[in-house]
């Protein structure tokens, strides 16, 4: 079970985040100021930290993050902010944040991104081969086979599949996919990704075989071994 620290000064937002993360199966601890958050983060080993960018009372989000990093704590940090401007995001990431989410956000997006952050830490060095059920992916040759039969993919489709495989069994939101595969940050109009996914599906799941990519309503996709 993952242990997550949430640093947020708004009571209601905090309560909602704690609830969403608890529902997601995380153990959650909360701090209402940057100072408290810093003390907790340094003293305990968390799997991830959700940090509000704007904190009242002395130490604000980026300040706390900088202090945390200089104390040698490398826990992945997801920054929450009401500021959506690109340079704000860049500043947040430069200060040592690992991901950035603009308020208001959907909680499924938050949990999906947190999962990705925690998984990233677990993932070891480059994998020789991915295997999910009958699906085999060779990242070096970029070759994909299902049950021994080669699946010809376009480069973009391959990257899409690779990302889904790297996060297998996890919900991946459309914006995350878009960021990882297309290298653009876009919060709107990502429904077009559905079309790409459906193409990928057609290639992955030839007639009669059970589907490997599930659509998670309202949020994104999940790749798993066929039932």
């Amino acid at each position, binding site marked *: 079970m993952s242990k997550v620290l949430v640093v947020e000064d708004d009571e209601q937002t905090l309560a909602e985040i704690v609830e969403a993360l608890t529902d997601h199966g995380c153990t959650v601890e909360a701090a209402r100021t940057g100072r408290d958050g810093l003390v907790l983060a340094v003293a305990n080993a968390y799997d991830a930290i959700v940090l509000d960018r704007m904190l009242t009372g002395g130490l604000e989000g980026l300040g706390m993050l900088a202090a945390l990093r200089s104390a040698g704590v490398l826990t992945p940090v997801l920054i929450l902010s009401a500021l959506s401007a690109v*340079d704000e995001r860049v500043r947040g990431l430069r200060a040592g944040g690992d991901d950035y989410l603009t308020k208001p956000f959907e909680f499924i997006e938050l949990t999906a991104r947190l999962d990705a952050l925690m998984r990233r830490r677990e993932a070891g060095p480059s994998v020789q081969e991915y295997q999910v059920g009958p699906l085999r992916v060779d990242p070096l040759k970029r070759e994909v086979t299902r049950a021994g039969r080669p699946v010809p993919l376009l480069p*973009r489709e391959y990257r899409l599949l690779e990302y889904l495989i790297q996060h297998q069994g996890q919900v991946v939101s459309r914006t995350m996919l878009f960021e990882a595969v297309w290298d653009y940050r876009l919060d709107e109009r990502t429904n*077009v990704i559905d079309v790409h996914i459906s193409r990928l599906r057609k290639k992955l799941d030839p007639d009669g075989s059970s589907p490997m990519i599930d659509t998670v309503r309202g949020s994104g996709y999940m790749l798993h071994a066929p039932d």
Partner: protein
Amino acid sequence: MHLTELHRTTGFRLATLFLALFGVVAMLLFGYLYHEITGFEQERIDDWLKREHAELIREDPSELVVRFKHQDLLDPRQQRPFALFGTDGKHLAGGNPGDRPPIPQFDRPFSMRLENLPKRPPGRCIAAHLADDRVALQCQNTRELDHFDEELLHALISTALLTLVLGLIGASLIGISTMRRLDAVTASIEEIVAGNLSRRLPMHSKHDDVDRLVGVVNGMLDEIERLMHEVKGVCDAIAHDLRTPLTRMLAGLERAQRRTMTEPEYRAVIDETILETSGLLRTFNALLRISEIESGVRRQGFTSVNLAAVADDVFEFYEPTAEDKRIVFELTRPAIAPPDMQGDPNLLFEALANLVENAVKFAPQNGHVRVTLFSDANSFGVTISDDGPGIATTERRAVLRRFYRGEASRHAPGSGLGLSLASAVAGMHGMSIQFNDVATGCEVTFFRPVER
């Protein structure tokens, strides 16, 4: 403004200032003239006196009594009274009876009152010691001259008074006229402040400085009114666009409340509500983002970006969608790649994506969509054309407004925000969106002039 505040008006102040200046100049001028005229008269008299004096000295003193008497006879009005006085100061002859008056100086003209004449007129005199110790006093009665001086002074004062009165009346009229005009302008402004935005400041046909100002202000008011209407239009559109999903949501929730439902049915209602709510949230986010982009906050996040690369990605992103509609989807690149520019790749992607998405959305099944990159000496950019219904010439400006849905697209899905966002992004990158005149379909160019 009240009449009591007339003196505060610029017109009145200027007019009185000029009146005062004119008065001072006129006074100086008249003073100088007065001085010159009186001086000239006195000099003439003095010249004459000196001539008479010289003549007198040359004459035989014994004949003087006769001569003076004769002179007196010739001068009944006693304009030039000459008198001869004995050594004892007694009057001997001539038109200046009585004892010899005190004489301040001899052989040089001086002024004195002619005490012994009726009404004691002023005079200019010259006195001479004769060889036999008698004294001759030759005078010129200057009463008429003084009269003239007085008349001159009177004329001056009355003219000055008249000028003052006329000037003040004029100043008041000017003041009142400017006050009236300003009152009218003020009243109009107050009405506008009170909310009547269609009101304009009154314009005279004088084409003067105030009219110029009024013209500029009226132009500004036109612009403000247009913006207000636009804001109102946006508000109405938001209200309208958000009312529909909210109504749907409410209906669903009320249905769930009314009926006894199974768990899966409740789930369906909740899912529906979540879907509608996140749709609403997305609309609001899009609106906020457009404002943010329009205010140019994002400009700080600019990096070097090539439009061709972005266009490639957009094209590739929409390829499957186009293929699903069996649209012939083509990308044409120029021989020379467009130059790198400073920009936000995410926003450029979004703007181009909106344009391409529209083209793919409105092109018919089996239609055509062309994405053409171009780069020449004057500009570089992307042209996107489709063979859909197109945009009416009259709607080309309006489609860039928030929530505006063209006639042809009223029933197509979408938020009505895509083109406004593209236009905002273009604006912040120094680019433009232009709809070209084509026979069929729609052709839109997203371009940037080349900096020289």
